[in-house]
């Protein structure tokens, strides 16, 4: 689901919130799932603490295509993490964003993960600045 400057994804996982938190924070575990189809991770470094940094290389066909880096803004083990999300290595990188993971215990042995990614400028700026822009985006969304 996406709206204006936000990307929102919810997913249920068959594990406890504590285990899910580990998957989201330990480099050797992040390495196994992070990135879309066709990409694999390269070097991953992180310091899990508020103000700590992280860096994730993304590779395609063995070559580093770009990296994502940022800073942990909030760490609330095992229910949430908030971090900045910036691209490096692209000529015209996408705008910076902030990603927020929230973990809820749905029922015993199941954890719900919500991911909200909010972009800082560009599209949101256009969507909210004037009524004319809102109208235009509504029309464009209908076209897509």
């Amino acid at each position: 689901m996406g709206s204006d400057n936000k990307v929102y994804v919810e997913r249920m996982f068959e594990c406890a919130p504590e285990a899910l938190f580990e998957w989201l924070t330990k480099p050797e575990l992040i390495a196994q799932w992070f990135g879309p189809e066709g990409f694999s991770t390269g070097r991953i470094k992180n310091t899990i603490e508020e103000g700590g940094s992280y860096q994730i290389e993304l590779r395609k066909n063995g070559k580093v295509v770009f990296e994502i880096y940022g800073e942990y803004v909030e760490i609330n083990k095992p229910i949430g993490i908030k971090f900045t999300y910036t691209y490096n290595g692209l000529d015209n990188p996408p705008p910076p964003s902030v990603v927020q993971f929230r973990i809820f215990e749905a029922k015993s042995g199941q954890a719900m993960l919500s991911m909200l990614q909010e972009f800082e400028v560009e599209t949101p700026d256009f969507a909210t600045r004037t009524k004319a822009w809102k109208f235009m985006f509504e029309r464009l969304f209908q076209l897509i």
Partner: protein
Amino acid sequence: MTTETDQTDKVFSALADKSRRKVVEMLHKKDSTILELSEAFTMSFQALSKHIKILESAGIIAKKKEGKFVICSLDHEALKNSLKWISYHSNFWNESFNKLDKLIKKEKDGK
């Protein structure tokens, strides 16, 4: 060859500038000549022309000659691709979480 991603990068880069966003807003209301657009800015005609060139290169606006005048208009297709870029990130997370889901299930089955 310019890919859709390259084009989207160009669009975001072009729209990062406040003056260029203002040009796009004005063209959303109506097609205009550069002279008409320049009336809304304090910058020089030359500086505005440079901004227009960047928007044109990103495919956001198109220019056509009508008699003595060059008319600028908005190309909605380029902006449509930018919105697709948002859905790219949605796919990014969905595909990542699909992998995570498989790993967690595999680990659970292995126990």
